[in-house]
């Protein structure tokens, strides 16, 4: 299942007076894969946290499936930049955590977790501890955990930023495959133009502090996407458009919305 | 042949020579032997004679520069003697002497100030403890740490007391005052005074000495090596202490009391005086043989007899030690101080 994600004129000011986000309005249709792109400090992580309900907006409304965030059971999953695994638990117990919180018994939860791990190619590492896994493997475990509840909305905060390029490309494809399978609405934060274009149907470009939307670009490349796409001219054209949007925002004068 | 000397002409040079000699020799005369004497409790009337000897000049006259080192509830001065940290030690009863001999610790008792051990068990009046035999059925007997390992063992074997009754006496009258059925240890010349002051009643007192625990008490103990190599020092200390005791019991106690108050501010002059009165009425110090042979007297028969009763009580095995080896009689039984007593008591 998938949910519609909306932000309506959202402001977020933090305690120190920092205005992370200003008058932000975003509407994401159910099942869309959207990237949120911008320079450091533009508030994109804040947007993600607002959608997840981990922050409350200072003004405006955040709605998931029409209801204000926090008023419905979390059908939202979150993948952090850090794999955020419990170091004392095995991979399968980490993946099973959301199910255990939902009071599913240990054996069936572990069984489901093992299946999820198989889905990310880690079936043989189910009993391993995070300390025994590589960075890429840990991130896969994190994604498996995020998807095990078959969420309506999948939020990812630069999950592959700390990985090497080869692993990153591989995980991009795995993520797309999993997304295609379950079909949640995906909101993917990144600072890599290439990644944003490769993964998503829409790229939302945000400006620097305070965070505002400066571009909403459609990427009309077909799914499923293959690695070879990265070398094709349409791909590069889209990347160019996104880059231009980013650059335009940096120019002091004559900066207009597309 | 010397010419006749004009005595008058010699007067001035003689005077000068005499003054010079005095000035030169005076430091020698003032060079007293430093002595450290450790007691077994905080300063109380039971130590009075020693403080008297200190303040009335007896120690000084005998060429001794004495420092009195208090004991106390958490303090055990006993190991300091064999270790050489102190010169003389106040010992509470002969069991300590027997233990030392048993363990090969080379010390000797050189004088016994108390002819009677004031160790007693006290109780609330009107609880049936007026008869000593009833005390062994008391639900609670408060005995302090060092006594637990000495005369409490004797009480268990010969008088039927049991460990189940025992609780540590931490020198706080609270538990005793709060429980009318409680029995606790005390010095017959001290605790009754405190109980009267804090509890407002006169406790029942049973002296252990009246029930077969007839040890000497407040003995002066010295290293065997000191007795062997410096008998003159020991004799002087013993004699001066004896004189101090006569002075304390029969003479002017003010200075000694003041000295004890300085060392132990928790006590009062009234309590000290009351304690002295009890010491005299109970015949603790100056009684039986002491009347004849002077304070500090000891005799081998009595020591042997006490050892035998302790063997019977199971504290020692027969022949485990030779009781004659714990004490030396060479420094006492000489009637030292009897003249002082006569003088002091005639004045009254």
């Amino acid at each position, binding site marked *: 299942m998938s949910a519609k994600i909306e932000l309506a004129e959202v402001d977020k000011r933090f305690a120190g007076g920092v205005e992370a986000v200003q008058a932000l309005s975003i509407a994401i249709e159910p099942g869309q894969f959207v990237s949120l792109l911008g320079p450091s400090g533009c508030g994109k992580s804040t947007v993600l946290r607002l959608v997840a309900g981990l922050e409350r907006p200072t003004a405006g409304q955040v709605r998931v499936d029409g209801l204000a965030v926090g008023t419905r059971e979390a059908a939202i999953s979150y993948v952090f930049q850090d794999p955020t695994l419990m170091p004392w638990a095995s991979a399968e117990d980490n993946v099973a955590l*959301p199910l255990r919180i939902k009071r599913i018994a240990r054996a069936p939860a572990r069984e489901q977790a093992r299946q999820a791990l198989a889905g990310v190619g880690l079936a043989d590492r189910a009993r391993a501890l995070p300390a025994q896994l590589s960075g890429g493997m840990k991130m896969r475990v994190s994604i498996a955990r995020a998807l095990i509840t078959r969420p309506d909305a999948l939020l990812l905060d630069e999950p592959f930023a700390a990985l090497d390029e080869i692993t990153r490309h591989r995980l991009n494809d795995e993520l797309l495959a999993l997304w295609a399978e379950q079909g949640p609405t995906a909101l993917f934060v990144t600072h890599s133009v290439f990644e944003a274009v490769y993964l998503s149907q829409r790229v939302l470009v945000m400006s620097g502090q305070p965070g505002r939307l400066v571009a909403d670009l459609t990427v009309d490349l077909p799914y499923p996407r293959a690695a070879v796409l990265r070398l094709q001219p349409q791909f590069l054209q889209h990347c160019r458009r996104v880059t231009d949007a980013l650059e335009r925002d940096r120019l002091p004068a004559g900066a207009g919305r597309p | 042949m010397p010419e006749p000397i004009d005595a008058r002409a010699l007067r001035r040079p003689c005077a000068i020579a005499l003054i010079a000699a005095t000035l030169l020799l005076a430091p020698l005369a003032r060079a007293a032997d430093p002595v450290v004497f450790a007691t077994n409790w905080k300063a109380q009337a039971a130590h009075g004679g020693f403080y008297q000897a200190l303040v009335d000049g007896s120690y000084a006259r005998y060429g001794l520069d004495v420092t009195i080192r208090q004991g106390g509830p958490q303090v055990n001065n006993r190991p300091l003697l064999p270790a050489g940290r102190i010169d003389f030690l106040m010992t509470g009863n002969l069991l300590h002497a027997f233990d030392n001999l048993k363990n090969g610790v080379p010390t000797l008792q050189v004088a016994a100030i108390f002819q009677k051990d004031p160790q007693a068990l006290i109780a609330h009046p009107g609880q049936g403890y007026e008869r000593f035999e009833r005390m062994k059925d008391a639900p609670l007997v408060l005995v302090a740490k060092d006594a637990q*390992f000495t005369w409490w063992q004797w009480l268990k074997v010969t008088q039927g007391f049991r460990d189940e009754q025992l609780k540590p006496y931490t020198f706080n009258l609270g538990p005793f005052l709060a429980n009318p059925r409680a029995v606790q240890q005390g010095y017959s010349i001290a605790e009754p005074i405190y109980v009267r002051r804090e509890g407002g009643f006169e406790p029942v007192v049973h002296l252990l000495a009246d029930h077969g625990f007839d040890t000497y008490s407040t003995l002066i103990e010295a290293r065997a090596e000191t007795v062997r190599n410096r008998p003159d020092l020991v004799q002087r200390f013993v004699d001066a202490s004896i004189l101090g005791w006569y002075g304390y019991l029969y003479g002017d106690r003010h200075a000694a009391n003041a000295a004890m108050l300085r060392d132990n501010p928790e006590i009062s002059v009234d309590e000290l005086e009351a304690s002295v009165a009890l010491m005299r009425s109970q015949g603790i110090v100056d009684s039986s043989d002491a009347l004849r042979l002077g304070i500090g007297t000891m005799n081998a028969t009595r020591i042997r007899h006490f050892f035998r009763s302790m063997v019977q009580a199971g504290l020692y095995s027969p022949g485990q030690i030779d009781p004659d080896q714990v004490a030396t009689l060479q420094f006492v039984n000489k009637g030292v101080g009897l003249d002082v007593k006569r003088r002091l008591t005639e004045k009254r």
Partner: protein
Amino acid sequence: MTRWRAAVLVPAAAGLAALAAWEALVRLRGIPPYILPAPSLILRTLWDNLDSLLVSWLYTIKITFGALLLALAGGVVLAAAFALSRTLELALFPFAIALQVTPIVAIAPLILIYVDSTTASLLICAFIVAFFPVLSNTLIGLRSADPNLQDLLTLYGATRWQRLRWLLAPSALPYLIAGLKISGGLALIGAVVAEFAAGAAGRETGLASRILEASFRTEIPKMYAALTLVALTGVAIYLASNALSRALLGRWHPSERL
């Protein structure tokens, strides 16, 4: 030489060397036993008095471990309560600190006045000495949970108890173990010191009474024999806590990596 073997052989060799030096010193200088007994004499005395010393040793061990268990239970429960309620923490923490700094030598006789059983009073005294490190460390541990994991649990709608069970408790475990290592030794010290200040004779007596008894009867070798048992107990506690730490944390915590 393997690390494990070194860990055993090196201290053992050092200990034996020290004992040999001690023995030599006593013999060469002819030091009498009531001043400084030789190790051989101490061992002989220990052997001769084994039955009575063993009984006392068991009693001291009983008090030590009883107090340690109480400290563990009390410290953990209080820490959890403080972690859940800041008001409670602000109200009660000063008492905990006051208890910690008041010398047990002063408290022990007082407790003996109010409490009837000697064993109970000794347990209370040893507990007072031992519980603070457990409380303090566990509280820090409970507060040191990974903030991302905290957010994750919020997202999944975990209750306070679930949060405690799945995140806070395992996060706090390394800190708790660290506190326990300290408290183990303190429980022993508390048991011995409390008995020094307030213990009884006859039944219900531990090593402290044996030491006192030997001291009052000028049986110096016996004092040393009893002290040796105290020292051995301390070492055993240290080794046991290390083993526990390895068992619980060995697989995943950095502190056990070495």
